[in-house]
């Protein structure tokens, strides 16, 4: 970027006659600054209101909180469910997204790949409630058999303890819906950075006799790694905070290690399901859970930014 407006702010003759302090200029610059400050105020307001409204729950008598054992006993199964669903989504979506991005950027015919790029962008825009509806109506009945099989054959693993849910509305299904939702997001970012790999690097690798995969491993992947990581982190942030898909697909319940029976819940789903009918201390408890979610996603986003900025120094981008 070569935008430097500071050097043109003062006219050349500033030393002899100072520029007139125009009212329009002053008002406009204050308006823009005010808008910027408003954003900071809003964010501070989000944090302040969440804190203020969650204080009653944090300081309440443990027996009054749902479950009767205090706020942290209430919230940790939700945190577990949130992390588990997001983790399932990431494990499923990351390799697939990498494959699709490579397919679009380096394997598909040029004309096809541009159209596919548009389609992926459009899929990323589909509202989450539509994915939720699809998950409950199409995916859950179709994967029911697979969970039954897992419970029958791998039931000794705590994660697959039976009996498998008869409706298919399990945390595993919710994780799969999340995976489908974040797939276009990760793909869009990965494709973008893969396409920016300098053509000279790729041609040099091919000229040395590399196969296509060796070329990709030597030039495209190292170049695109920061972008890929930030895409995955963005997907993780989305999966952690995603509400509707989980609220609709998962048949929520108490904590269980098994991913293939109904049970477990996530913070966001718990809020969406219970908040509209909540009152009194329950409202405060839910807002406190929202605060926990806010802190988790904040930590993920900041970690993502740190990873990206540190990796960028070693990438081919500069």
């Amino acid at each position: 970027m070569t935008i430097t407006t500071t050097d043109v702010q003062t006219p050349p003759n500033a030393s002899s006659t100072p520029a007139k302090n125009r009212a329009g200029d002053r008002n406009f610059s204050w308006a823009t600054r005010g808008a910027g400050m408003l954003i900071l105020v809003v964010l501070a307001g989000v944090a302040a209101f969440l804190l203020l409204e969650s204080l009653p729950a944090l300081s309440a008598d443990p027996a009054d909180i749902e479950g009767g054992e205090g706020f942290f006993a209430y919230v940790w199964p939700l945190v577990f469910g949130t992390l588990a669903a997001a983790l399932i989504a990431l494990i499923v979506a990351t390799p697939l997204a990498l494959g699709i991005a490579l397919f679009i950027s380096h394997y598909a015919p040029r004309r096809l790949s541009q159209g596919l790029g548009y389609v992926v962008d459009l899929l990323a825009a589909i509202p989450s409630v539509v994915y939720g509806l699809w998950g409950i109506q199409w995916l859950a009945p179709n994967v029911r058999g697979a969970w039954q099989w897992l419970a029958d054959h791998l039931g000794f693993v705590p994660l697959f303890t039976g009996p498998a849910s008869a409706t298919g509305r399990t945390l595993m299904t919710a994780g799969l819906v999340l995976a489908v939702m974040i797939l276009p997001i990760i793909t869009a970012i990965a494709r973008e950075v893969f396409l920016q790999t300098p053509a000279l690097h790729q041609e040099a690798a091919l000229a040395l006799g590399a196969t296509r995969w060796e070329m990709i491993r030597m030039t495209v992947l190292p170049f695109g790694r920061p972008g890929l990581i930030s895409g995955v982190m963005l997907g993780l942030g989305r999966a952690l905070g995603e509400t509707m898909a989980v609220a609709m697909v998962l048949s929520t319940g108490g904590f269980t290690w098994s991913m293939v029976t109904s049970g477990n819940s996530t913070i966001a789903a718990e809020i969406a399901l219970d908040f509209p009918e909540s009152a009194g201390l329950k409202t405060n408890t839910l807002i406190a859970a929202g605060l926990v979610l806010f802190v988790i996603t904040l930590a993920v986003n900041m970690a993502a930014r740190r990873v990206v900025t540190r990796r960028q120094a070693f990438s081919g981008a500069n």
Partner: protein
Amino acid sequence: MTTDAVPATATGTLTHRRLPRYAPAVTLALSAAVGAGLSAAVGFSVPAFVVGALLAYMATITIAAGVVEGRRKAVDRLVTSLVYAAFGIALVPLTSVVWSVLANGLPRFGAEFLTTSLRNVTGLHDQQAAEGLAPYIGGAYHAVLGTFLITALATLISVPVGLLASIYLVEYGRGRLARAITFFVDVMTGIPSIVAGLFAAALFGVLFGVGTRNGFAGAVALSVLMIPVVVRSSEEMLRIVPNELREAAYALGIPKWRAVVRVVLPTAISGIASGITLAIARVVGETAPLIVTAGFTSSINNNPFADWMMSLPAYVYSQAMRPLSGSTPEPSLDRAWAAALTLVIIVMALNLVARLVARLFAPKNSR
């Protein structure tokens, strides 16, 4: 004369031996047969067939390439088939989403659906309709109206704030405040939508009494999600306006604010408009914040500042999760799908508009 030459020259060519061009196609056909056989052995099902054929193909092509072409080519072939497989696997859910929305949504979608509300429609109507005794009634007019009003209000709040803040960042901002805004806008893009909803609910609860739900609260929640998107995209667009344009304007003696409003903004307006459209498309489908701020209703509500207000995403959610008639949920599910189709059409149209705006109003002599 001894003829113990290396294999390459023995075959009279300088290149390494390669599999024939038709090898992948033949292998694929054979693997399909193998996959059919394998899946038939465990009771035929489409997923088992596909998985069996895929594994058979990958194993065959890798081993064949390993024997004929060498290890490096074998790895290349394996990765190629993995990439194609990843693409194919990902197509299944994604096409199925689009297909389910179209197939399930189209039967109930239409003018009648978009122009009637759900007021006084009860589970009894649904039961009679399912038994064929009465026509299907009940639409989503109130939800479309609510979505329109809430999104319009959110846009009215977000666009001035976001645009002005991005102008500050690009044209004025230096030092700590600008850095803080940049950082916190990044933080804001990561706020989960439900947390934004909780914020608005808590804010309106404190200001107007606990349990206040109306369209305006929903608009505030959506603004929290929309402002950072607007700031981000507008900032990017303003930054690519060539500096020479600003300098030319200053050289003519124009005040800075007029240079920004009359020169910089018009140059970047296509990108800004397209970014704003995409931001609208992003928030129009947000469900979670509206559930906790705007509530549900089955009646038409024209006033976003009072009473509960339905929106399309909330309509999809409530029809799917709480059908009007518990015993015959199908009519409600049909309505949910039709509303989902409406929502998808709106989002797609907004995306198309954004693309068209960016293309049609692009500055003629842009670099």
